[in-house]
């Protein structure tokens, strides 16, 4: 299952990145400066992340909605994870791995809605 999933996702990854225009604040100030080593988007197929796309999205959605780590609006997930880590709240390492595995997981849940423009 894991091997098959990684093959499928590798195929789809290229197509999605061409169409997607998610305004992710990768080039913005603090994200690049403080987390330069983190934001290296590699095409990894780590054996530890044996989760399907939906499971990953679900975990990240739970992370976003968890009030323990503070507001999730207007802040990238990695910034929020680092903040929670600095406050000694022990956010699971797995979530950080998922966020760093693909660029599209960087922005919080709500960011996707910024792209929805009503068509008249």
């Amino acid at each position, binding site marked *: 299952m894991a091997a098959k999933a990684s093959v499928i996702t590798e195929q789809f990854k290229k197509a999605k990145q061409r169409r997607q225009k998610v305004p992710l*604040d990768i080039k*913005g*100030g*603090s994200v690049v400066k403080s987390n330069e080593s983190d934001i290296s988007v590699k095409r990894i197929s780590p054996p530890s992340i044996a989760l399907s796309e939906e499971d990953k999205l679900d975990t990240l959605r739970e992370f976003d909605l968890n*009030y323990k780590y*503070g*507001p999730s*609006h*207007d*802040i990238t997930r990695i*910034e929020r994870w*680092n*903040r929670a880590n*600095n*406050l000694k709240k022990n956010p699971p390492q797995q979530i950080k791995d998922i966020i760093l595995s693909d660029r599209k997981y960087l922005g919080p849940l709500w960011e996707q809605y910024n792209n929805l423009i009503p068509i008249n």
Partner: protein
Amino acid sequence: MESNYDGLTYARPTCSRENLSQKFCKLEDKYSRQYAHIYFMRSELMKNRIESAAKKKWGAEINIKKLSDVVKGEKCCLLGTLFKIMPLQPSILKEISEEFSVPLQSERMRFTGEDDKLVLEDSMQRISLVGNIISHECFTGSIIAVLGHESEHGQFEVEDYTYPGLPPQTEIVHVPKDDEYVLFVSGLGIGAKKEKTMQIQLLIDYILGMLGGKEDHELCAKIIHVIVAGNSLSKDTLDKEFQSKAKYLTYKSEASSVKAMCDLDFFLSQLVPFVSVDIMSGEFDPTNHVLPQKPMHPCMFPSARSFHGSTFHSVSNPYECRIEGVHFLGTSGQNINNLYAYSTINDGLRLLSDTLQLQHLAPTAPDTLGSFPFYDIDPFIIDECPHVYFCGNQPHFASEVKLGEDGQKTLLLSIPEFSKTSCAVLLNLKDLTCEELCIDVDWKEEVDNMETDDPEPEK
């Protein structure tokens, strides 16, 4: 210069100075964030402190509860952020709301009223506070602990409340043997319609030892540092009219702030070759408006900046530093002036003392005091109790020593506005006492003879 006295020379000692304000200079370009993050960080960072203060005051066994677990009638202790609902507070929502068609509020100095209500918020819920807590003496954004019980009406009856208390303090390592003075001045008001150029020049001459007699020279030689606490430019330089005029009408004239900065640079260039100067940003100075304010850029000081790094330092607001081992922390007054407007406390020293007990420089930021939208820090939290806690641009000079429960000792200092009072403050680092230094001129014009009195420097 061969004079009545023996031609003594006094040498000014150099001072060791360490700037600790790096956390106030961390501003990104992103102003679009919401302020919920600051409040989250504030409550997270202060959680432990307020809990230990509550346990210290009411015993270690008190019942600390979350708002969601409160049981009616049960005595418990709640920790959270205070919010004051003030109907008279200017609200953008009220202004644009068509239903109410509220007439424009007349300009007020104070926004407190009879209907102010206090609410305690924690991470999930909020509850109204009634009872033994006076809303006019509390500030929005403070982290407090309240002891009491929930009444039948769903409000919390407060029996007692407490602030986090003074933060820990490190002792002064080397107490100087001789008198060493730091001069504070704020609100120079250069560029005003009635600016006090003569008084400012006299003050500079006095510091440099060009005025007064032997005792004055001896005193001034011991001034090792000068701190200019904000508002070096006057409010009149913020000429809105100039900004809105069409370019073709203004192409030959300059903004009044340009000339004012030249004058400020001229004054500073007289001081910096002889004494180290820290110039803080203030409300009307050319730097960013919201707190924390960045230092004024050295490019605006063409003459003084040759000493940049040695005796000339342009610093942020709030400003924290260590001079000769004494820990200073202070602002140009915006935080205290905002607290005046939103409470009925008239005593500046009481406000300084309250903010120190709250361990927060500006509790009303970002609610009523402009603040940068931080997301991972709250730089206004006071981690270490300073030895001197000052605030500039106040109506009068006042100072008081505040003692803490764990042996902390802080001098609270309120620096008067020079443009209104012509007074500066001299602080003696040996014993942390201070005195006011007034320099004024008295011009009398009579019809027949023009008589000008000699300017008098007096203490």
